[in-house]
């Protein structure tokens, strides 16, 4: 079955979406990410969408669900690399991606994940063994 690969990098999961996703592929990704968070005890998930030339409400909803599910599993999600034309279109479509954190590129996304995980640990919340 066709799948979007999920790479483990340190304590993070990295997903680069490089194909024009049909709906089933998007649903599979959602399940795979949550499985991987539990299996690898990842604290952060980065989704690189720089190759996506379109985000419609379905894909937007999938990004939102991944972020919410990850949060419940104590992992932070950041979506990186959105193309400007995609951002303009999303706003006109009416999708604000509430609850989804974004960064301009992979480096900035990594910084964001690191700092928010450090902050969480400093607050003593959700301490893991």
């Amino acid at each position: 079955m066709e799948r979007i690969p999920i790479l483990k990098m340190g304590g993070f999961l990295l997903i680069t979406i490089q194909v024009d996703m049909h709906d089933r592929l998007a649903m599979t990704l959602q399940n795979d990410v949550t499985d991987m968070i539990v299996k690898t005890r990842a604290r952060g998930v980065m989704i690189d969408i720089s190759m996506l030339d379109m985000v419609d409400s379905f894909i937007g909803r999938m990004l939102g669900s991944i972020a919410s599910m990850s949060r419940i599993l104590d992992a932070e999600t950041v979506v990186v690399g959105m193309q400007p034309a995609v951002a303009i279109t999303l706003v006109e479509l009416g999708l604000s991606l509430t609850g989804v954190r974004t960064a301009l590129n992979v480096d900035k996304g990594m910084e964001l994940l690191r700092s928010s995980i450090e902050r969480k640990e400093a607050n003593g919340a959700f301490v893991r063994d």
Partner: protein
Amino acid sequence: MPLSVTESLALRSSEDVVRMRQWVRARAVGIGFSLVDQTKIVTAASELGRNILEHGGGEGHVYLDLPTHNSKIGIQLTFEDKGPGIADIEQALKDGFTTGGGLGLGLGGARRLVNQFEIASRPGEGTRITITRWKGP
């Protein structure tokens, strides 16, 4: 290149929606749409294509034309299904209204992404939606 020929594609699965997006993108590039205009028409098409799968009896057709008006060229897409139809079009166009599992942005969102939007529907007979986006100034 003959521009007045109508092309069509059957929509039966989400793979067909992906094919349709690539097809619309190729035509938009072909007539010189800007990247933003390409993205808008492709996104609108994606919303309406998925609508057919979810609400249009799961099957329909999309027709593509390249009309000209006042020396401007555009892309016109017509989505037709023989599904249950829409009882209250006003309501269906409101953001957040959904009878499926989605966000209810499909129709209203697609309308905001194009220059012209026409919808005709009869309960029990089906729905036809025509959208047009003109090439920017």
